[in-house]
């Protein structure tokens, strides 16, 4: 009996797509980094950006736009919006597909007709999402470390690690959310819709909270607040936020473990 049959099989299924994801993400990071010297030297751009209304910038995840340093540039261009979006596409997509997708294809029936606990299917799937998020983080980290000397980004390693950790955890939280909604509803569409819209609301709550006082308490519920807010690449990551994200992720999985066990599978 293989030790983690569901995990192993899913990973084998996704090897190829994960490789292409990595190539795409690395390419994006390389291109954005290559543009940095040009933008740093074009003095007009910082002033141009400063003329944008602050809330427009906030929506794109940029609170203090500062293109004079590599960290400031990447915080705005990569980590404010694009990288979180990409990691969510990867993990939420997988989260919806692994259990709900298998159920829709009739595959879950076959697996669960074998002596495999539902809990185990859920936890192995959750582990796979962790691996996907870590792979994404690793590609991001390695690409930036490789580009750093070439375009002299002058990144702080500890800040970069913290930033990537936040992104990885963000991916895990929403990937697990999609996984659990899929496991509870049996619908991949619903898994993607719920995780996607919760992510959108959470993103806005975190970025607009900096501008709209009425929203300030809401930011404390948003995973984005604990993962990406405050430009951790510049200012350093608040490490205990990682525990909050971990707690959120575990709460989601716990709901899944309890609910999935009790449900009738769809035919």
């Amino acid at each position, binding site marked *: *009996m293989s030790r983690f*049959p569901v995990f192993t099989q899913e990973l084998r299924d996704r090897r190829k797509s994960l490789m292409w994801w990595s190539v795409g993400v690395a390419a994006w990071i390389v291109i954005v980094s290559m543009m940095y010297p040009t933008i740093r030297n074009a003095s007009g751009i910082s002033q141009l950006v400063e003329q944008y209304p602050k809330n427009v910038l906030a929506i794109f995840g940029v609170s203090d736009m500062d293109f004079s340093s590599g960290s400031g540039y990447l915080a705005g261009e990569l980590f404010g919006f694009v990288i979180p979006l990409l990691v969510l596409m990867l993990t939420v997509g997988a989260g919806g597909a692994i259990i709900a997708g298998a159920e829709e294809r009739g595959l879950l029936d076959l697996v669960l007709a*074998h002596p495999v*606990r539902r809990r185990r299917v859920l936890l192995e799937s959750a582990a796979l999402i962790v691996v996907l998020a870590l792979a994404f983080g690793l590609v991001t980290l390695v690409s930036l470390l490789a580009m750093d000397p070439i375009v002299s980004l002058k990144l702080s390693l500890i800040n970069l690690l913290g930033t990537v950790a936040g992104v990885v955890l963000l991916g895990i939280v929403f990937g697990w959310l999609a996984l659990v909604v899929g496991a509870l509803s049996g619908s991949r569409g619903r898994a993607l819709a719920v995780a996607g819209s919760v992510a959108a609301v959470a993103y806005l709550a975190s970025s607009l909270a900096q501008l709209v006082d009425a929203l300030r308490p809401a930011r404390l519920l948003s995973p984005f607040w604990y993962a990406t807010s405050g430009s951790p690449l510049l200012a350093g990551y608040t490490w205990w936020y990682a525990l909050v994200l971990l707690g959120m992720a575990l709460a989601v999985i716990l709901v899944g473990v309890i609910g999935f066990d009790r449900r*009738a*599978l769809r*035919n």
Partner: protein
Amino acid sequence: MTPTAAVRTESLTVAYRHGRGINDVTIEVPRGEVFGFLGPNGAGKTTAIRTLLDLLRPTGGSASVLGLDSVVDSLEIRNRCGYLPGEFVVPGQLTGREALDWLASLRRGNASRRRNELVDRFGVELDRPVRQLSKGNRQKIGLVQAFQHDPELVILDEPTTGLDPLVQDEFHRLVREHVDRGHSVFLSSHSLDEVQHVADRVGIIREGRIVTVETVEALRQRGLRRVTLVVGDVFAAQNRLGSIDAVSEMQVRGDQVLFAVRGSFEPVIAALAGLEVIDLLSRAADLDEVFLALYRGSEDRR
């Protein structure tokens, strides 16, 4: 200790939000028997089967499999059963061999001891992605995975869908051998002919309720067959057949006589002796007609 039944349900009820539930189903399948679960599509066969494997939960009554409770002891049940779902799919681009390995890896112990023999018998294509195979060839892999660990009970949902007649025959032999070795088989079908071929007893389910459970022999006695007779002297044939109790619904169309026969063919064949019979075509009535015959039967007895 008396040997426990392979399957036993007591007033099993599954209210199911997508319809196709079952209601108050009580059946008992002793070990060493092939039990055929017969009913039209949507009658609740799949619901009952999936409840035995804890994919669905009873909302009333209970089910036990190999003497174990279907909910509490499900893991043990699933380790000792084989299952072929109505639609057999495997993950990704797995080949037949990889799929069988993977499914065996979900079980304890040597879960593929009968594989080679089964693969040879059915002529299974092992080295191509299962996804690319025809329905029939995919179904063969489904059969191999259901039997490869030599389980005490095999549960099969419409197992012969897509199989060509030769493979169906091989499948029927496999099922007989399996029960001859003391194991049990529980299969569903919407074809009376198929169930008659392979099952010892048949449970007929309609709209979620068991209509009757009887031996194949008894069912055959009651079974209705539709006959088309081509004969030289139509009127003589009509006269002779008309006096037989088992013959009904007779009509004449050109040189053909159409009628239904319930039970034995013996009197029909006797009556036709000496007439110039050109062709005789008989087919099993469809399930709906069998149901009608069953209901008629129960009214007759009243």
